[in-house]
């Protein structure tokens, strides 16, 4: 079973040279730590920055320089700042190659719910609806089951949707799955996890073809 770091490490392997990537809050933010140094990848922060660098050293924080999670960050050589309209412009026009974000539920046709739980205070969708509606490649980082032990990979989302038919891949503590027209296609098992365990934790349609390899994380 993967911990959060493991999920982030596995997702980092999906990031290709030359990609512009938007990382959501939570596990997706950790992915940045596992992209190899010198790998030509540019991180976009939707509040108006291309070329997000690491957190600043203590004492070097700049209140004018934050990411979409409101954390203090730094820039890198080649960075650029722009306004929110242009930021979502580049998202909508699919210039961002890969979006990685968390989810509460994903359905086997790629619908995603990650912004609202009926009965709980609704904080808002932020930029998530824009991102999922526009990104050409969306990977979801999440736990396979919720705290009550219920599957979050469903035939149909029960929570209000953030976007429709948009998720391409899911990485959980148990597995890597593609979202296909026929449902979740199991690609890899987490170390020590059996196909049976994944089956039991997945409520949506699950496609298992041939031997499912265990994932490599170096």
């Amino acid at each position, binding site marked *: 079973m993967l911990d959060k770091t493991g999920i982030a490490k596995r997702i980092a392997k999906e990031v290709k040279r030359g990609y512009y990537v938007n990382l959501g809050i939570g596990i997706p933010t950790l992915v940045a730590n596992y992209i190899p140094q010198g790998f030509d990848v540019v991180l976009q922060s939707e509040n108006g920055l291309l070329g997000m660098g690491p957190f600043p050293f203590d004492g070097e*924080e700049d209140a*004018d320089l*934050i990411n979409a999670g*409101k954390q203090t960050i730094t820039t890198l050589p080649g960075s650029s700042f722009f306004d929110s309209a242009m930021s979502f412009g580049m998202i909508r026009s699919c210039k961002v190659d890969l979006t990685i974000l968390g989810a509460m539920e994903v359905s086997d046709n790629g619908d995603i719910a990650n912004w609202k739980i009926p009965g709980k205070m609704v904080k808002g969708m932020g930029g998530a609806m824009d991102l999922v509606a*526009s990104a050409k490649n969306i990977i979801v980082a999440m736990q396979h089951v919720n705290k009550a032990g219920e599957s979050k990979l469903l035939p149909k989302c029960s929570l209000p949707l953030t976007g429709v038919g948009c998720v391409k891949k899911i990485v959980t503590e148990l597995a890597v799955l593609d979202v296909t027209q026929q449902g979740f296609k199991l690609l890899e098992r987490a170390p020590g996890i059996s196909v049976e365990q994944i089956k039991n934790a997945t409520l949506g349609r699950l496609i298992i073809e041939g031997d499912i390899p265990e994932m490599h994380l170096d």
Partner: protein
Amino acid sequence: MNKVVDNADEAIKDIQDNATLMLGGFGLCGIPENCITALVKKGVKGLTCISNNAGVDDFGIGLMLQTRQVKKMISSYVGENAEFERQLLSGELEVELIPQGTLATRCMASGYGMPAIYTPAGVGTEVAIGKEVRNFNGKDYLMEYAFDADFAIVKAWKGDPHGNLIYRETARNFNPMMAMAGKITIAEVEELVPAGDLDPDQIHTPGIYVHRIFKGVNYEKRIEQRTVRKS
């Protein structure tokens, strides 16, 4: 052109009860601190505030929530504010949540004289309820209307008497679009320089969009999530 006013009190003096305001900023980054303080002091009530966030309990728009000056918030994310939650749950406060890119683009549309825009954000979700859906090239889009405000209040780094503005780093965020969308646009700046001091190639908001400008004071520039790495 000389659009300079003395201070925030002067800049906001004709903002009346029940006005609609746009306030720039993302979280606490790039917010018009001086004008918020002045609005609290003036005590104007029943405000509709269009701003990406609602501040925190004791800073930013949160200060106007404490004094019950806000009737309605139009934002993309309002999660950092306990008083906000209390007022919302008690029905004292209305909230309208809008996807962040839609919010930004609707402001820009106003400044660009475009009455409506199309965006895929929210298609198939409850955001789409009651909205026109239109298919272009096989993809569905929502039609969203431009919006403007009685007053847009923005914060820039540098400005000149013409109202030309330059923002700094990610404190730019919503400020340029809101500056374009105000019937009256008020800009507070950290540095007010003489006309001609700003490089005309580097101006983010041309002065034509700005009606009043003043040099702000005592910027706190609070950091919401101080996150550092070990050296």
